[in-house]
């Protein structure tokens, strides 16, 4: 079985990713997250006063609008909106600003596979730049399962179309371990869980847990990247 993928990466290699801080002036927080050629621009406005009818006024509510690159808004966009809304609701501290609405608007600039994970990463960064209180960060990764059960990370569009099945997984960001004692490691492993999982295609149970393992390992790399990018302060800030 070939180890090299179409674009020359090995199975565990992620595409080069970048995050631009606040490219939009008017939004309270925004981020442009790029993973290879998949680029998503996320803008956060909020907290704004008042909640929509039907939402719980004792908590902050999150509203997501997904704008595709081309075409009209259809069922796929509604599905993405619902997944994003529920993922972001689980990472935000909703009781800090009750009876408010935070709007997250996503614009797909480029789609070359792993679109949903890229969008989730972009939203998370935009929420941090906007100063919305979060419990922890959400780190998203796309995994694909090949015919022989091999797992590849950060699938491109061409790979996704050929794959038997793929999964989009979101994990909470890993803790920075100051001291790597064995006892600490065990605690951290048992606390590592899954926030969101969306799968497409048929895969066996072992393949799925394989994906989760590889995804967890890769998520620590993305967590480190997020930690450095999101911490960088503009000159002049205290």
């Amino acid at each position, binding site marked *: 079985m070939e180890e090299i993928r179409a674009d020359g990466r090995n199975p565990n290699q992620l595409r080069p990713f970048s995050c631009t801080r606040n490219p939009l002036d008017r939004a309270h927080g925004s981020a442009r997250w790029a993973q290879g050629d998949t680029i998503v621009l996320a803008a956060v406005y909020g907290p704004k006063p008042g909640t929509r009818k*039907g939402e719980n006024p004792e908590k902050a509510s999150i509203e997501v609008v997904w704008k595709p690159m081309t075409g009209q808004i*259809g*069922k*796929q966009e*509604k*599905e993405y909106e*619902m*997944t994003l*809304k*529920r*993922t*972001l*609701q*689980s990472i935000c501290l909703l009781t800090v600003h009750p009876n408010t609405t935070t709007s997250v608007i996503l614009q797909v600039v480029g789609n070359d596979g792993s679109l949903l994970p890229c969008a989730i990463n972009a939203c998370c960064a935009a929420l941090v730049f906007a100063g919305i209180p979060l419990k922890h960060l959400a780190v998203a990764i796309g995994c694909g399962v090949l015919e022989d059960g091999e797992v590849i990370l950060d699938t491109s569009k061409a790979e996704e179309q050929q794959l038997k*099945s793929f*999964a989009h997984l979101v994990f*909470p960001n890993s803790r920075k371990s100051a001291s790597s004692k064995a006892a600490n490691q065990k605690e951290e492993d*048992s*606390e*590592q*869980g*899954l*926030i*969101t*999982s*969306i*799968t*497409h*295609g*048929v*895969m*066996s*149970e072992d*393949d*799925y*847990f394989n994906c*989760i393992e590889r995804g967890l390992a890769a998520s620590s790399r993305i967590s480190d990247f997020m930690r450095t990018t999101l911490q960088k302060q503009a000159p002049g800030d205290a």
Partner: protein
Amino acid sequence: MAAETEATAVGGLAGEMEVEAYRRLFPLAFLERHLRESVRPDARRPAEARPTTVALGAVSSAHGSALIRLGDTAMLASIKLELTSPPSEAPDEGSVVVEFHMPPICSPLVRPGRPAEVAPVITKVLEDILMSSGMLNLKELCLINEKACWLAYLDVYCLNADGSLFDAALISAVAAFTHLQIPLVSVGDDGRVFTVGRTEGKIKCEFVNREKRKLKLNNIPFSLTCALHKDSVLADPTAEEESIIETSVTIVLDSSDHIVSIQKPGGAVASMATIKECISLAKDRRRKLREILMDSVEAMEVDQTD
């Protein structure tokens, strides 16, 4: 939240208040009191799903239909076939169009001007799963290669929304496909192809296809939705439980226990052990659902031969 824990701690207020009032005012505390005794408000065990009934052929004018009851959740699925010409990329395949409707009858939260947000999402996921599970072989929906094929319109109507909407929608769609019979077709005088009903009169027409046939279905997918609350896993949640518990996992398995889909949109962080528990519950549920479906198919075939 503080008020709820105070109420339960003091006990006096809880004792004096009527059960129904307590249920409405402190829904989370009400549910947690039950879960401490390993029971749910409707007296089920946490891992138990609601009784399911399948009635095939509920809509006589449709080519395939099924009415499903999953506890109080009721879904009606119907399939109508239409002749169309196949696209050039796939001249020997038919196609399926899936639509999930939530009319205002199903829930007080749905109004004509305020459609349910969850309806287009369920439509999309249902379509993905029916296609990706390999249950349908689109080549079977072909009539005449390159000239005519069947377009199946699958409409699933939610008649009563009481939780686990996706599970009920999937069973109803699958049941409707097992009931589906491709009708006889003949060519009219003007060259138009039309479908012939069961008891069509004395007109002797040439039939294009020999006999009515059913679709051959392999790898039928079944699903189970579990609500996750702290340490408890509640299988097949009702609408009340779904509104209190925000985290849920939907697992779809096919006949070889392979995972067709695991949908966990957000919610609290779930450990691997919890996911494994949900998968094993889904496996048990798949076996039971398959039995229920096969029983109703047999019962219907017996009726038809009489």
